[in-house]
């Protein structure tokens, strides 16, 4: 028996690797790749060039080309586990829909290392967990009433039950033939999805559920769980329509509300805590990915706060922290989350806010904090804060990159003299 050469061993190792590995230039031209990568790439390439990563994925993940192109640094992680949904519909229910995760690392100005992994099973697990969560939440909530409707793929109402009129106050006969999204107005100043946006997600994932305020015909608000389920037939590729269930859910009881508060709030200031903030970021990141909603983050840090604690003591410092939260939280939009991330560091997460809107709000927060006055030992104390804003688009969808970018800008504002919001265009000029 011949001794296997180390090159043979290395090749065997790469041939057997259960993760797709490839190396390409910034234009996507593949230099090297292992067989597992080709296993996924070739069927997606169709008639396009399988020797070019971006061409091969043009149909399923055209964004990869622009994500790579928009990554300015000479080296670094371009994207991490970016999901490629190979099949969009929910046609085959027996096998999980194929989902690939793509990670790109820039090794040099014109060199990318890329991995492709099949995460279909993992995505199925995630979906089951979400479903279990929803059921569990229903048990806790109890339900006052529900209404069921069927709508066409374009959202036009086909049928509904008497529960619809009972719950919403709209006459069912008058609603049939109308777009349900026009009837059920959603407050989108927060992060709530419009009905037509829910249809998009439901077409891809099979279903979508959201909770939020809904208005009855008489203008009264109620808390509503809105479930949209795609209806399909085996001989059709896309959905033939959707079922919509509206549930009138009582708002959480006082005890549950207390518990929720303990779990999600910072005990000193009442702002959201880190854990809740991190959950909210994950939730909004999903929406950003699904529907390309803008998402902004403001990071703020109180200026020279240590000096206040050192001079006047922590109880005074604590009062000032509480006043900051009291002044800032009411300025946020309905789905915005104001959180205390650390000692004197706060953050605001803003669904559907673009960079400009975030800077505008940061300016309002800055003014609100600068107006705070706390009287102690005969002196009036004031304080200021420095601000950095960033959008998830700028961060290529990575939460870590979003935080890092906002943080970087926050410190630029500190260096710029404090009591200010970092202005990207001013820095570029």
């Amino acid at each position, binding site marked *: 028996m011949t001794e296997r050469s180390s090159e043979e061993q290395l090749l065997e190792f790469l*041939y057997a690797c259960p993760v797709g590995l490839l190396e390409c230039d910034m234009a996507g031209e593949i230099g090297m790749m292992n*067989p597992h990568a*080709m296993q996924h790439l070739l069927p997606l390439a169709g008639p396009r060039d399988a020797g070019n990563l971006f061409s091969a994925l043009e149909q399923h993940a055209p964004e990869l080309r622009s994500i790579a192109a928009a990554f300015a640094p000479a080296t670094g992680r371009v994207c991490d586990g970016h999901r490629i949904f190979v099949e969009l519909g929910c046609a085959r229910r027996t096998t999980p829909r194929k989902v690939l995760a793509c990670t790109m690392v820039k090794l040099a100005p014109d060199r990318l290392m890329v991995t492709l992994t099949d995460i279909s099973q993992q995505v199925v697990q995630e979906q089951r967990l979400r479903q279990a969560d929803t059921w569990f939440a229903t048990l806790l909530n109890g339900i006052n009433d529900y209404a069921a409707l069927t709508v066409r793929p374009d959202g036009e109402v086909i049928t509904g039950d008497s529960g619809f009129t009972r719950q919403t106050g709209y006459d069912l006969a008058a609603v049939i033939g109308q777009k349900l999204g026009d009837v059920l107005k959603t407050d989108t100043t927060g992060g709530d999805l419009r009905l037509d946006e829910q249809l998009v997600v439901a077409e891809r994932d099979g279903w979508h559920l959201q909770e939020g305020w809904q208005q009855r015909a008489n203008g009264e608000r109620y808390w509503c769980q809105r479930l949209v389920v795609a209806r399909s037939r085996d001989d059709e590729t896309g959905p033939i329509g959707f079922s919509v269930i509206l549930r009138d859910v009582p708002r959480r009881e006082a005890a549950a509300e207390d518990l929720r508060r303990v779990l999600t709030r910072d005990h000193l200031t009442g702002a959201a805590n880190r854990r809740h903030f991190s959950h909210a970021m994950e939730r909004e990141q999903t929406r950003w990915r699904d529907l390309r909603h803008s998402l902004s983050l403001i990071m703020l840090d109180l200026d020279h706060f240590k000096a206040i604690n050192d001079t006047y003591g922590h109880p005074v410092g604590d009062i000032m922290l509480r006043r900051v939260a009291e002044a800032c939280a009411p300025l946020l939009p309905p789905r915005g989350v104001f959180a205390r991330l650390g000692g004197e560091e706060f953050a605001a997460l803003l669904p559907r806010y673009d960079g400009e809107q975030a800077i505008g709000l940061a300016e309002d927060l800055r003014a609100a904090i600068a107006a705070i006055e706390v009287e102690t030992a005969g002196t009036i104390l004031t304080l200021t804060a420095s601000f950095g804003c960033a959008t998830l688009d700028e961060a290529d969808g990575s939460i870590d990159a979003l935080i890092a970018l906002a943080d970087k800008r926050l410190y630029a504002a500190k260096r710029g003299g404090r009591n200010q919001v970092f202005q990207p265009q001013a820095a570029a000029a």
Partner: protein
Amino acid sequence: MPQEIAFESLSLTTLDGMSDVERDALPFGIVGFPADTTVQVYNATEARLSGLDRASVMGVPFFEAVAQCMNNFMVAQRFEEEPEIDDIVPYVLTLRMRPTKVRLRLLASPEAARRYVLIER
């Protein structure tokens, strides 16, 4: 040289009847495996071009451990689903990790225990 050894026309029966030495002399790669896909035939041409030692490939599940690039509906799944195949498909392999355009000829028959993939670079 007899006519039937051309890539396009070599028959499954002829392939089965050849000796290892005869198969090694062919100018294209030949891989043969039964229903469980463990490699039984791996000719010298294929070993040379893939850079793999024949001894280490024999007995190994072909689509899982050696040719993952063919482990999809375009090749592996066809052997599972179609009892009879004689088809030539343009393909891209990753020989020594370089994307390489090839032609594959897939051969299967309900009468034969062994299926073949012929690879022409």
